[in-house]
């Protein structure tokens, strides 16, 4: 018996080592692409609010790390054009060229998402699960809510940000996005939205 568990243990150590190698390889692959000096400066500005590693430490400011590249690109264009006016962002996006936006989106999409801000409350996570299943969140946001193309990552996103965003969607106050999101949560209660945010962040 002892022998067997010892064998398993050494297998376990080997596995852990292999995983370590794999994850550091993955980390290497995640190194953001090189950007111009002008954009490097801009990225530093982005990071003052959205976090040094792209994971926001500020209340209700979204994390950008690991968001789908296409989602970031789309939102930056919509903010620049005034379709989705965000007061805090207006000054930073108004002069961006299409190429700047492409580079910024590629950069932030390659950073590793880590949940910041309020921690998911297990009771709310449990409450949010069936709501998320009923509303078919995975249909658009991906199996692990990791985000797909123009649709954002929810997994690891700040809970306080997601609650505010969903309230805005429900009130048609989040222009620019496909109206599918407003449709999905039109009849969700405020309690549902809070539970959904805790559930989604915890994925």
């Amino acid at each position, binding site marked *: 018996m002892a022998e067997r568990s010892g064998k398993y243990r050494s297998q376990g150590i080997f596995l852990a080592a292999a995983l370590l190698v794999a994850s550091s390889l993955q980390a290497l692959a995640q190194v953001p692409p090189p950007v111009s000096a002008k954009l490097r400066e801009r990225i530093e500005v982005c990071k003052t609010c959205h976090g040094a590693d792209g994971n926001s430490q500020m209340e209700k400011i979204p994390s950008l790390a690991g968001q789908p590249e296409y989602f970031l690109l*789309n939102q930056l264009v919509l903010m620049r054009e005034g*379709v989705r006016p965000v007061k805090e962002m207006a000054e930073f996006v108004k002069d961006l060229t299409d190429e700047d936006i492409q580079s910024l989106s590629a950069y932030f999409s390659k950073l590793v998402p880590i949940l910041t801000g309020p921690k998911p409350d297990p009771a709310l996570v449990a409450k949010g699960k069936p709501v998320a299943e*009923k509303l*078919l969140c995975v249909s658009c946001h991906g199996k692990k809510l990791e985000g797909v193309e123009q649709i954002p990552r929810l997994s690891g996103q700040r809970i306080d940000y997601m609650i505010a965003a969903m309230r805005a969607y429900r009130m048609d106050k989040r*222009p620019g996005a*496909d109206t599918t999101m*407003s449709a999905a949560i039109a009849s969700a209660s405020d309690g549902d939205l809070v539970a959904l945010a805790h559930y989604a962040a915890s994925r």
Partner: protein
Amino acid sequence: MSAIVRTLSLGFAAAVAATAFGLSPSIAQGPPGMSRMDKTNAGASGQARTLRPHRTPPIAPKPDKIPLDKIKLPAGFKAEIYSHGHAGGRTMVRAPGGTIFMGSRAIGRVYAIVDKGGKREVKIIAKGLTHPNGIEFRNGSLYVFSIHRVYRYDIIEKNLDKPGKPVELTKAYNLPPEIHHNWKYVAFGPDGKMYVQVGANCNICEINNGIRGHIRRYNADGTGMEIVARGIRNTVGFDWHPETKELWFTDNGRDWAGNEGPEDELNRVAKNNEGAFYGFPYCHANGIADQNVKIPNACAGVTMPAALLGPHAAALGIKFYTGAMFPAAYRNVAFIARHGSWNRENKYGYDVVVARPQADGSAKIEPFLQGLLDNDGNKFYGRPSYVMQMPDGALLVSDETNGATYRISYSGAK
């Protein structure tokens, strides 16, 4: 290319005034958002949980990425790129001076495409609007419908680089402010009235037909509103038969009721049937009772479609052809752009079809522009959105995802 880019950035500067105007606070018109009576039961549809709306690139691809080589047409027809660089461009209307105005959805822009000695320049004449899909032109003025906001740009063709502040007609038109299914389609009818789409603010729900789910018409100034056809989920394209002057409109079928339907509809409003009911939400396609909103005799009194346009096909623009360039067999037939499905496991549409009106009031559907859908790979290369006849009889087709228009001409035997 650089000339186009320069014109685009000039357009940005010029559009600032219009933008500020477009962002003025909305007037209060009832509760915002979607219907809370939506009865969608996606889980019971049996459809894959991975279906989601497709993205629309907000940055137009370069001309060498536009899938012109994929397009297939009947013998004697040819496709070429007419214009490009108008990301998300959909609806088209041509002004007498030759400017083609183009509406869009999420990207919020109105474009002007100007022919400069055989090369097309693209200008942005308004931006920051909410789904400005409804555009129409008359007497020197461009009408832009951005959900419930209505703007009229006077003497616009002479002022493309400085459109100035438009006349706002929002209050007069008094349209519902909900965004969903309310990206407008509008057109002046043969009676000189402005016809306006108002969609259902849900996938499937009860609606008040006096407020939405219909086509209505107005005097150009927004007075004299009356409802022309009711029970419509979401029409985003209509036109009038050149001889009978009857209104024909496409209507998009509901989602999450299976991969095979209910099919989109091509409907006709017969002269003696104005104000008729077309079935939403109770009765779909050619007589399918809804599975979520149930009433007895769901299809009683419902005007049936002239033709079915395919499951989840997203039939958008429709135009009857009256030109002399195409063979006589195309005279007075309708070209219909099918944007292509999202709520279907095997993709469908992404093409332009022909609808041939029959003596009994129905229509026969035939393929026309194909090749943008790869059936084997279940992927698409482009999304035809609207069609427009040019003065020389060529047909322009807008492709929303490629930010381009294709000019379809005919040079074969007649």
